[in-house]
């Protein structure tokens, strides 16, 4: 083994040679569009610890986005007052104006910021709004558009409401029998269809293709009652959230 020289000058020269060689190998092998090691990885900002640009929104980001959209004057105006609720908050990858920010290079991920799509709904006037929120220090709303109530998706809360409307209908109670009050609307993580003891109600947004039927445009649910895996299959229960009524249609063959 050769001991390092005590003369600092040759050591510097060797150091330079070594750096030169490393750089040469790197530049020869490095693909054009692949990241190089010239710059260190971008550090996460204090607001978004360890969250990369294309990661799903964190619960904290969702809260901030919902708050920013709910507080925005343009959103409020579109929703026409009342007490609108947040229907969903979802991740959105918005392309930057400067395309170079969307390239993974120089050891850095893309630089597009964090954005959320927020949809709100006011059931009092059947109005919805969609907002794009920029999640940064100011959490500002970048874009707003109006949504007809018809275009606002139904939610878990709507399903709960539809279920309570249905249970006030004697025909529905008769369909469900003695355990009518045991049916529950379950959150996704609670659903276990293989559990024979689980008694649950599920729902689908119901639309007819007949313009004369209120469910052609209004917010209607087809409720599905099940015990374990077995759905109640004798009839269909349809709830109109706008008219707040329920009807039972006997099974068609």
């Amino acid at each position: 083994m050769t001991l390092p020289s005590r003369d600092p000058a040759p050591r510097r020269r060797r150091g330079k040679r070594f750096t030169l060689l490393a750089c040469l190998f790197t530049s020869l092998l490095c693909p054009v569009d692949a990241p190089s090691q010239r710059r260190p990885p971008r550090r996460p900002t204090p607001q978004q610890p360890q969250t990369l640009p294309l990661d799903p929104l964190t619960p904290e980001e969702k809260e901030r986005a919902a708050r920013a959209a709910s507080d925005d004057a343009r959103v409020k105006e579109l929703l026409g007052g009342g007490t609108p609720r947040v229907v969903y908050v979802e991740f959105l990858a918005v392309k930057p104006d400067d395309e170079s920010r969307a390239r993974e290079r120089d050891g850095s991920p893309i630089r597009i910021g964090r954005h959320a799509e927020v949809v709100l709904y006011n059931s009092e006037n059947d109005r919805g709004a969609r907002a794009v929120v920029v999640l940064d220090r100011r959490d500002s709303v970048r874009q707003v558009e109006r949504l007809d109530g018809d275009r606002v998706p139904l939610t878990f809360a709507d399903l709960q409401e539809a279920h309570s409307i249905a249970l006030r209908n004697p025909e529905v109670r008769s369909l469900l029998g003695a355990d009518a009050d045991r049916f529950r609307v379950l959150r996704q993580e609670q659903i276990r269809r293989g559990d024979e003891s689980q008694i649950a109600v599920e729902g689908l947004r119901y639309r007819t293709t007949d313009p004369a039927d209120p469910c052609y445009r209004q917010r209607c649910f087809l409720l599905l009652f099940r015990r374990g895996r077995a759905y109640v299959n004798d009839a269909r229960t349809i709830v109109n959230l706008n008219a707040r009524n329920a009807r039972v249609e006997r099974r068609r063959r």
Partner: protein
Amino acid sequence: MRTHRVVSLALILAAAFFAAAEASAQSCSRPYFVEQSFPTGGPEQTRWRICWQMQPRHGLVITSAHFRKSPTSPFVRVFWDARIGEIYVPYHSGFAFYDVSDFTFGWVALNSNDCPAAKGGTLLGGGPDVCKEVRDRGLAWKDDTDAYRGEEVVLWGTIDAANYNYIVEWTFRDDGVVVGRVGATAQNLPGSQTEAHMHGPIWRLDIDLDGFTGDSVHVGTHKENLPGPTATDTDPVVNVETGLQWVDEQFTTLHVHDSALKNKPGNRSMYMLMPLRWGKQRHSPDVTKQDFWVTRYRGTELFARELPTYISNAESVSNADVVLWYYGGVHHIPRDEDFSSADPQWPGVAHVMWTGFMLKPHNLFDGTPLYPQKRR
């Protein structure tokens, strides 16, 4: 001797730098980041880098996908975003569901039965949400006594649409091909269990070859010059936002070109959108009247149901940032095999029916991929 040691050290350092740079450049964290090189045994030839998310309603969304055709080539972005933009489900008696845009459906947590490690499966996400499978895909090519078995990495997750499950599957092959499929399964609609119906997924494919802009879409059209024996292939450009028909006898495909991306021989690289279908479903909503749509990129235009509105201003899609949409379909005629006659507490299930498309690279490679180099 000393020089040899320095060179070796430099090589080791360079390799370490590469590993660090690649790891740090990803734009999503694990488990949302999937990187797969091919072949899985032997020296690397091709590589995919993918980011994914599960989103309510859309299910498994690909939030970026890059492909590298050789270890010395640059990564080429294929997707900025790829997702299901709608699943339209009309029943023959006249009612219908929009299973993506009408309800905030979640997704089914997976388990090791869904995604067995023994079959190349890895569960991803906290649910777990997604199954990653690395698997043999059969013959990639055969030439007399020579043959090559291809491989692929498949990601799939399941939308829980009440009685129905939709399996949203994305396959990234070793030869740069992407296959998108949706499989409809689980239980037929209670109260209408024996009623025939259709499941029509519409994919939104934001394909960005070599950057956002500079992409153009051409319509691949085959014509037999009957009654003569010759045939002609053309691919006219799509100039403005529009909907397009799939014509079976024309083998209609959409071709996405980038104005600058070429392979080594100097040919324009593109991806071809090729339907995998056995029918053409048409219903009353306008969105079901076309098989393909081409729109200019708008970040919030995510829902296929609004396509007639999205194209109403007929923006230019030539040499632009474009998004392709493809409408597939499954025709489900319930059968006794969908039910159990033995036990009313175990009502039976509809087996998976698939529909989808293939995105195939064309002039992306410089020659036959996955072919022995010594033969060149």
